[in-house]
């Protein structure tokens, strides 16, 4: 499903963020990506999300090489991904409904289909009934769940989450992780970058550990 082969990433003036990283995630697999601050976790996720390009090696998604993918194809490839961020990245001037609907609107779904899927998605994260609210009127945990609803609304094959529980208390974190486990159950591949060693160990999934850009355990 997701394959890294000898991937290195060098930022123009910050040196090498990733060095010779190789691993493979199967369909329906759930894995954590850990490492100290600055180890290259976000960088690795950005390569998958096509927000950055690797300097050496190759990244492939579902058998398709996305290493040197053309600018024009990126939007269509991204529609197979669900991205979740620590700072949620919601549009604060739009309702919860509109935020969650964005990936569908962007892909050209009709009204009824959008409404149906957005409800289903909000239902999964337990936010049905808050469609008309604005993100800033919600708690941090609720905002993160809006972000998750947005990530899954397009039925992605792969979910990438960059420290999704960074701003949440332990209970909420466990709740969010439980949600990811449910996605895994239905065959979605999930990759989560996180510092939260305790929670990670408790859950007992595969763990990829980065140290100064090197993959030291997988």
């Amino acid at each position, binding site marked *: 499903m997701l394959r890294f082969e000898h991937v290195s990433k060098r930022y123009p003036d910050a040196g090498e963020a990733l060095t010779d990283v190789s691993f493979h995630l199967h369909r329906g697999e759930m894995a954590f990506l850990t490492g100290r601050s600055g180890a290259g976790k976000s960088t690795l996720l950005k390569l998958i999300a096509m*927000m950055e390009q690797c300097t050496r090696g190759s990244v492939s998604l579902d058998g398709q090489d996305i290493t040197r993918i053309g600018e024009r194809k990126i*939007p269509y490839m991204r*529609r197979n991904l669900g991205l979740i961020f620590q700072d949620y*990245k919601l*549009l604060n001037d739009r309702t919860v409904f509109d935020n969650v609907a964005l990936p569908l609107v*962007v892909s050209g779904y*009709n009204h009824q289909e959008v409404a149906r899927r957005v409800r289903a998605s909000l239902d999964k994260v337990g936010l049905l009934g808050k469609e008309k609210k604005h993100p800033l009127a919600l708690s941090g945990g609720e905002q993160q769940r809006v972000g998750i609803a947005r990530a899954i609304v397009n039925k992605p094959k792969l979910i990438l989450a960059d420290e999704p529980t960074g701003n949440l208390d332990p209970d909420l974190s466990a709740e969010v992780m439980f949600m990811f486990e449910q996605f895994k159950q239905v065959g979605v591949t999930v990759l989560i970058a996180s510092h939260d060693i305790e929670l990670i160990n408790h859950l007992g999934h595969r763990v990829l550990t980065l140290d100064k850009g090197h993959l030291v355990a997988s």
Partner: protein
Amino acid sequence: MKHNHRKQAGSRLVELFQAYLLNHAHGLFSSLGRLSRTPFTSSMTILVLAIAISLASSFYIVVANIQQLTGNLESSNQMSLFLHDNITDAAGQKLAEQIQQNGSVVDVKFISKKQALEEFKANSGFSDALNALERNPLPSVIQVVPKNALENNEDIEKLMADFKQFPQVDFVQVDMQWVARLQTIMLIASRGVMLVSLLLGFAVTFITGNTIRLELQNRQDEVFISKLVGATHAFIQRPFLYTGFWLGFISGFLGWLIMTIMLLILETPVEKLSTLYNSSFDLLFLSFSEFILLLMISSVLAVVGSWAVLHYQLRQLKPQ
């Protein structure tokens, strides 16, 4: 099974198309809504654009009006052959008939001394003074309208020289020269107007482009997030292009309004002047098709400016 598949693909295509149309309609009106949410900035931009557009169209309409005026003058490009005092009416009439034979002449009219005096009395308002004169001081005149009056100066001059050869003719006067000069001046003026309009058109393009650039900066987050959930550039730039369109369209209309109001203010004094000159000059306004053209040009210029900025800037904006 296969059939079913195709049917499904077909309905997805229809769905995509409907969504696409809906998207456009939504973009068209939501961008108008967004403009109205920042009324101060929007109206400043629109006013600046409208002034530029009204300037360009005012220049245009002024030239069109003067051209209309000089157009009327064209019919007076005639030559006047003043005859010697001793030439009788019969001899003058005969000469006129002779000139009529000339191939490069369209119309010939003989005006006897008496007719000339009558005409002068009627038009000048000096009738009492003229009545007091013992004898008619005016010569008889043959008015000649040459073919293609203004097209070739040399031909006209040659014709003039020919007419001077007639012993009956005292001197020849051509009304054409100052008209030709005026028309040359008008040609320069209309070129000038074209250049100025071109500049003002560029101004419209750049002002709109810059407005869209600022708008894009204000809405960076939205652009980033849309990109991250798989929006194409075409999708992202659509609402901005609509904003550009509305800026151009509304300014075009407002520019037209400004120009029309200025013309209306000028209309009464111009008419007064025109009656003083014994002429029936009607002030020319933009015709309906010219008005539509103005709206189209300003919209297109604004969209082009927006598009150029979006094309360049969307590539620069990379989600972080």
